[in-house]
């Protein structure tokens, strides 16, 4: 149960970071608390949008889905795997892959670092670890 709780908390942190970046990208927040200027450079780069939507929006939806899965798992409880545990693991893995691509873009294509994006990358990585430990600690679904 504690892994599901940790996953819910991490998902909430990630969700808040993603909402913050999304609101900046869509002009509802006028400046990022960044300090280095790198956030603005990253957020104004071509890699900050995907399929016509801000990358942060995918983060908002992804973290929300992970939060939902973790909360469902908490409600269900028990020692057996629920579909939400597998979904949480799959979602976190997809998030790490997506975040890895964005971190690569920051390092080699944009050549600037946004501390909020790096923070989100750390959160999703921790979430994957927690989701894996949770999945492994449970007995297979009956």
């Amino acid at each position: 149960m504690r892994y599901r709780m940790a996953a819910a908390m991490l998902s909430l942190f990630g969700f808040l970071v993603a909402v913050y970046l999304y609101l900046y990208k869509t002009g509802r927040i006028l400046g990022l608390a960044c300090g280095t200027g790198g956030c603005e450079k990253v957020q104004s780069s071509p890699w900050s949008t995907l399929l016509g939507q801000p990358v942060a929006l995918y983060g908002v939806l992804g973290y929300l889905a992970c939060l939902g899965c973790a909360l469902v798992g908490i409600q269900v409880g028990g020692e057996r795997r629920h579909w939400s545990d597998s979904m949480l693991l799959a979602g976190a893995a997809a998030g790490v892959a997506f975040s890895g691509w964005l971190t690569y873009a920051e390092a080699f294509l944009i050549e600037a670092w946004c501390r909020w994006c790096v923070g989100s990358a750390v959160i999703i990585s921790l979430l994957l670890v927690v989701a894996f430990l949770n999945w492994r600690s449970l007995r297979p679904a009956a």
Partner: protein
Amino acid sequence: MKTFYVGLGGVALVGAGLIGVQMMKPATVSIPVDVAITVADTAGFQGYVLGSDTAPVTVIEFADYQCPICESFDAVQWPAVYGSLVATGKVRWVYRDFPLDQIHAHTRLASHAAACADDQGLFWQMKQKLYNYQPSWSFGSGQMDKFRDYVKAIGADVDAWQSCMESTKHAGRIQASLEIGNRIGVNSTPNFLIAGRLYPEFMSSDEMVKLVDSIIAARPKAAPAR
């Protein structure tokens, strides 16, 4: 379980509150370095000029708003330099930005703040404010709030200045000045280009007055009108 939900709700509330505060804040500005330099930034902008266009000597100062020696020059030497050389018509003074971004995180923002004040004819007043208050804005955060206070104090239109800052429209001229400085060999601040020769060291007002007077004295005098 109840504790967990209270904690989760607390994090959500605090996070939403922080985001709400950010949404109500005015824009913070970051001045881009990798900006396209246009003709308006080079041929159209020759630096911030003070003094007579017919002055026999031109002095170009390359300076950085966060540089302590530049601040010292501005506070201690500049009044005498202005009085002895600029006000007397001997020197046409040109101020150019030479932001040392590697060591001064906010210098380019300060350069842009002065450039936006220049749009309202208040460059020299803003320059003086920036140097006078250098210790208070050089470190920590909230530079835009402080600069806004200075702009208000010099009597500028704060809304127009804010719009100018958010547009970052003078980023090109700042970068152009930096590149001009690099081309002629400026590698620290303040550096002075006096009558076409670079003096890459600090200069007191007395030394500068002597130097300018010697340059003027060495020039051939125009033949007296008959």
